């Protein structure tokens, strides 16, 4: 209840507002003065070398990591504020992990219904109806009663996406969703993500999957050493991948030259 009393700091279209955020792990500086605004319905793609702070930035958005300083406002709610009920914000922000993080002791269906019942207070019947519908949308309606251990990587990730979507989130965060998958399974997950993007979901995707960039990304952000080095439009990115000299920053050029072998 309290969170609704907080005056929203941004009344415009920015659903995520990241302002001068710093974060260190011991002596390692993960985020250095990062600022970023994401508009409602925007698909934002973040890439860059590992250890560059991409995942940390993503995890700061739903407060799985606590920034050392700076402000993050999600859908008008300041998540960096001490008194904010973070559980409420998290229910509005879906997250998909690299290693799926499905609950192994529960069936696919129960994985999707659990938070609906406990957080959204939906009835068992309603939660199951939504879960089955979502399993159909991600293309595996027949796996409702399977345990995560009986699913392939691609199927697991699709259940994980359905689990996040069941909460009716306003934002979806993807933390390297295809990095742990076999090549032939990447497409099935990517297709689900592309469909989501076409439906107008606000998405922040940390990934190396350039196929997604070509098809769905509206903004492309290159991060290295805890900083946002460069921001590109899909057209600029396409040009840069064909002719590396078109990348504005030296570090972007270097990284692209390595991944485009």
């Amino acid at each position, binding site marked *: 209840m309290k969170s609704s009393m907080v005056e929203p700091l941004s009344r415009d279209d920015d659903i995520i507002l990241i302002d001068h955020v710093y974060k260190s792990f011991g002596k390692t500086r993960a985020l250095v003065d990062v600022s970023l605004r994401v508009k409602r319905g925007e698909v934002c793609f973040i890439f860059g070398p590992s250890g560059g702070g991409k995942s940390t930035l993503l995890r700061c958005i739903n407060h799985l990591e606590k920034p050392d300083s700076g402000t993050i406002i999600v859908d008008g709610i300041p998540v960096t504020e001490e008194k904010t009920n973070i*559980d409420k914000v*998290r229910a509005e922000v879906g*997250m998909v992990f690299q290693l799926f993080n499905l609950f*192994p002791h529960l069936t696919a269906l129960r994985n999707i219904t*659990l938070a609906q019942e406990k957080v959204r207070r939906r009835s068992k019947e309603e939660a199951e109806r939504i879960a089955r519908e979502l399993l159909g949308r991600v293309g595996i309606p027949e796996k409702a009663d399977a345990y995560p251990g009986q699913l392939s990587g691609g199927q697991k990730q699709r259940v994980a996406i359905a689990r996040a979507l069941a909460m009716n989130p306003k934002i979806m965060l993807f933390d390297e969703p295809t990095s742990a998958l076999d090549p032939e399974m990447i497409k099935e997950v990517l297709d689900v993500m592309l469909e989501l993007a076409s439906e107008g979901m606000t998405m922040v995707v940390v990934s190396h999957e350039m196929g997604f960039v070509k098809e769905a990304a509206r903004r492309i952000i290159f991060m290295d050493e805890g900083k946002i080095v460069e921001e590109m439009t899909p057209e600029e990115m396409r040009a840069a991948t064909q002719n590396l000299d078109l990348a504005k920053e030296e570090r972007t050029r270097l990284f692209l030259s390595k991944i485009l072998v």
Partner: protein
Amino acid sequence: MAITSEVERPQPKLIPWTKKLTQLPWWALIILLAGVLIVYFLFTSPTYQDAFSFLRAGVRLTILVSLIAFGLSLILGLIAGLGRVSKNVVSYTISSFYVEVIRGIPLLVLLIYFAYVVTPLALQFLNWLGTAMLQNLTIGPLMGLAHSLADLNIQNVDMLARAIAGLAFAYGAFEAEVFRAGIESIERGQMEAARSLGMSYFQAMRYVILPQAIRRVLPPFGNDFIAMLKDSSLISVLAVRELTQLGKLNRARTFRTYETWNTVAFLYLIMTLSLSLLVKFMERRMAFEE
């Protein structure tokens, strides 16, 4: 690069029968033989029969005490274990204090301490509380409670209750560590996934972490229950008439030392061995499920 393996694989050999013989579980066979011998005595010797019928009630009480005390220790252990993994300084400090103090004191001393120090102190406190309530309340629904608190007498708390409390608190510290180990063995991503769906810390614990953690620590719980069954013999110092105490009484009654303690040891062995078979079965089933 093609892998060329010219090295000859060693042929699997049949295990020679001499080696098979050394690998047989001889220890189990010896125990079985001793068991057969005791059972034979139980059927033929009147002294053994007399001892057995006298000790039977003790077996029942030993099992009862172990079950109740272990159940309580699991509850205490869960609370203290959650405190041990908590980021809250107060609950971490309290539960760590409990665990470290209890683990550092011998069980026998703990049992005596609970029976003769903690119980009287707790009673004095309750009496004081009841009297204070009587003085400050005029009339109300709590009057009955206040009266019974003020009138509580040390004689009302029998040694069996004190013994069970002592065992439960002593083992609670060990179970707390088992719970802690189980909770910490669950990957961090599970908590993160649950929290990112908007579940509170306690919801995530209750529905995601604990169900997985408890499944993993069932075998250690089984082993601790066996240990508790054996350690319940120590409450004989409080004159609780469990198996060991009845053994002492039977020896004093009949002066048949060998027969008495043979039977007592055999009865314990039957209980613990069958329980450890159960734990082994449980472990195998769990390994299969993983």
